[in-house]
């Protein structure tokens, strides 16, 4: 899938955000990680090709998510639904 990478000083964890370009809480999540200098990758699902959307759907469901945006995956194991500063801080040690 074509993810966009946002560089940051903190690279201890692999952080991936499934987002929508129109979603306010997705923007807040991206901004929060940027402000905390966390490196992350994201995909705006609404701007993606159809086959990519299906991949995203399968992947989120496989990880136990409920297709809400943003869905953040930390190290491909910890799934965070919505803009949850507390959970991001906890799992990314911020």
């Amino acid at each position: 899938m074509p993810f966009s990478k946002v560089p940051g000083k903190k690279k201890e964890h692999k952080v991936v955000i499934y987002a929508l370009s129109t979603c306010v809480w997705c923007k807040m999540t991206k901004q929060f990680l940027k402000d905390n200098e966390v490196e992350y990758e994201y995909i705006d699902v609404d701007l993606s090709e159809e086959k990519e959307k299906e991949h995203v759907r399968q992947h989120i469901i496989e990880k136990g998510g409920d297709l809400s945006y943003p869905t953040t995956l930390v190290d491909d194991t910890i799934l965070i639904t919505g803009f949850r500063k507390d959970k991001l801080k906890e799992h990314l040690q911020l």
Partner: protein
Amino acid sequence: MTQISIDAVRARAEADARTNGYYLIPDQELLQLFLEGLKVNEERYGYPTCPCRLASGKLESDRDIICPCDYRDPDVQEYGACYCRLYVNKKVYESKDLPSVPERRPLEKQAPAYRGSSKQQEQKPEATAAPSQAKQKLWYCKQCGYVTYREEPPYLCPICKAKRELFAELKTTVEYSG
């Protein structure tokens, strides 16, 4: 392509909040982002789908997430805010403490937004369009008489806030004579 101004989007949301006794999210910066999201979706799809949900671009599948979505009223009633938290009740507006609102939209309603639009799949909607439309019915609110045409009755009547149980199917027959 539909063109709409951000002021028109704001005026519509404010009027709808006023009509229903709701408030818009108190943070003005976030409110602006919500309005921009709605504007983008309206210009992209021709109707303002929820900025927090993935739309299919097909009105038939997106009808329930046109803002204000079908799930707003029960969500505001239960959690004090809609799924996006664009619409909130007075308590949330005054406390500025936004609740967490889980997704109420069923997964099967979300599925069309993820279906591919390859040539093979493009033929599917046409083939299924007729049965899908056939599922739509007329429903009326037994409390205030509001009538709507859709697959299922709304969670709450948008006019008098009666619960779904107070909706009944309105059956019509057309007779030809002479």
